[in-house]
């Protein structure tokens, strides 16, 4: 008999919501994708303040904004199920952004590898930008701030995991102050 204990106890086995169904963008009946090198050059062109960019030499898929949002929700729900204390803490763990982007990216790629016959990966990573313009309730302070970034239907999508705000890359208020991107 498999023992299932409630979340919050030191559970050996837990019930986890199934991963959201993948949604990738197609054009002319083929998956829309970009090469890593193209993305690297594109980002350097788009962000003159960019100092570091790390992106693999793979082909990368465009995903829907909806699926990106679902991946965010699934991953953060999973994290809080595994570490219930996250909900009570004032500050998130210092390794939260990197772990969130890595987990989201890997869960997305698990779904793609299972459901689609494509040799390409989902592109989700970390971005650092100077917080020079206020975004929603987040006041500008000029300090570097980390975000989750993904390649989606309309280009790039940016997620602030502290405030749970999401916006397209072209509407991101601090897009002119991006300094680092790691995919």
């Amino acid at each position, binding site marked *: 008999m498999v023992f299932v204990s409630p979340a919050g106890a030191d559970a050996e086995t837990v019930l986890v919501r199934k991963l959201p169904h993948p949604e990738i963008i197609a054009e002319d009946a083929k998956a829309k994708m970009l090469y890593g090198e193209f993305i690297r050059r594109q980002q350097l062109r788009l962000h003159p303040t960019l100092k570091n960019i790390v992106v693999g030499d793979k082909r990368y898929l465009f995903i829907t904004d909806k699926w990106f949002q679902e991946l965010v929700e699934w991953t953060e729900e999973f994290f809080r199920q*595994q570490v219930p204390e996250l909900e009570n803490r004032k500050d998130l763990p210092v390794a939260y952004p990197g772990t969130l982007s890595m987990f989201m990216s890997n869960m997305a790629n698990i779904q793609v590898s299972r459901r689609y016959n494509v040799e390409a990966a989902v592109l989700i990573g970390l971005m650092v930008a100077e917080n020079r313009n206020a975004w929603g309730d987040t006041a500008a302070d000029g300090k570097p701030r980390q975000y989750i970034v993904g390649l989606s239907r309309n280009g790039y999508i940016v997620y602030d995991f502290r405030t749970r705000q999401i916006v397209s890359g072209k509407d991101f208020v601090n897009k002119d102050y991006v300094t680092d991107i790691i995919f």
Partner: protein
Amino acid sequence: MDNCKGTYLKRCCTLVVTAFVLSVFYAAAEAVPDGYVEVRMPEAFVPATMNDGSPRYITAREIRAELKRQSSDFVELFWNSDIEQFIVPRHDWLVHLTQYYLTFLKSNRLRGKAESWDCENYSSLLNAFATLRIWRAGFYDTRGAIGWLQVDAKQEWAGLPAAKHALMFAITEKGFFIIEPQNGQFIQLEEYPNKKHIQEVFLF
């Protein structure tokens, strides 16, 4: 005699029916709700300790220095500069984590697939699981001295061919190790045949 047989048969039937009812009951009780899966989680994190029993840590600077010493192709170590030091896991915990991961991969039927699920994914997901267990143990202002790296392997190791590859690495109380997450093989960095060709290293 016929009465004994009849009673015996009745008792057998009763037992069979009871067993059937119980099995249905337990099956229902164990049934996983629609839309959910059962996931077994790794063992609780155990840090390596100093002589006074406090957790052991290492800095990015120390990790970088060792990598630079071992690899002539070393490019850079990428890490979150907000993290001042990295907690060192106990070696046997890391071995158990790796074995857990192999079971997780097998039970989820995860197999390599060009570009969408490759060596980078094998390495980085195991990293992320380790971090979750570290948080669960209450260490929020650090992450594990566990990461992944890219190597331009010139020699075969752990059953994988000489080619560009991604692997895990970790520092435990027994030293600096390279780990192949696809089959759980460990080797000390000193002994790793491709150590001179380690390029980019990630502590994310």
